[in-house]
């Protein structure tokens, strides 16, 4: 028999700047059944949030404070962030 959690496993995805303002929140939770690629995660988020859809062509994804490629696999416990074009300096 498996353990049953009170809440389904989720990845918290952090948002910043324009994307944060448009979504209206500094992070969104994505419920996951198991490990998924960054590409799959982005598509899920784009389906749920028009703002993510609009930025899709220029978002870079960071996992655990480091940029990763589309095929990188993420799961619950990872710190994921969507990085729109930066403008520090």
């Amino acid at each position: 028999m498996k353990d049953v959690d009170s809440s389904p496993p989720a990845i918290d995805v952090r948002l910043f700047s324009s994307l944060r303002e448009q979504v209206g929140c500094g992070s969104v939770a994505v419920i996951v059944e198991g490990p998924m690629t960054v590409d799959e995660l982005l598509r899920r988020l784009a389906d749920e949030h028009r703002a993510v859809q609009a930025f899709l062509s220029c978002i870079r994804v960071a996992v655990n404070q480091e940029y990763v490629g589309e095929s990188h696999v993420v799961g619950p416990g990872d710190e994921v962030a969507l990085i729109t074009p930066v403008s520090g300096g």
Partner: protein
Amino acid sequence: MEELRTDRRWIRIQEAPLDVAPASDFLRVEEAGGIDLFLGTTRRWTDGRETVQLEYECYESMAVSELDRLLDEAADRWPLSRACILHRTGAVPLREISVVVGVSTPHRDAAFGACRYLIDELKRRVPIWKKERFADGTTDWVEGERPPLTDG
């Protein structure tokens, strides 16, 4: 505030005003003969529009990690004696400093090369965003270059 400081490098993200003197003091070491410091400041006029302040948002933990990686890359290419990158967050009024990038090296060629590399890459990669607040009351998130997704 988020900071990483070792003998040779100093990275700091802070809300408080930035000053150039602590950076210069950190960089001046016996093995260095040249120091290049770049300061970014809030400019009033851009393409005829009047800015009243810039507002910086930062993903601080990642910014420090990414700046540390940038300094690794620069140290591979140039003989850095010391290097520092300090970035302010929140509102930065006209004339005030948003970023200090500084390196000290034995000779000046490397200092100019490394400093330029660091500020260019910071503007490309480090998760910090600026919003311009204009005199007419409007605001704009500034978008930098849009690099393609690459496999990490």
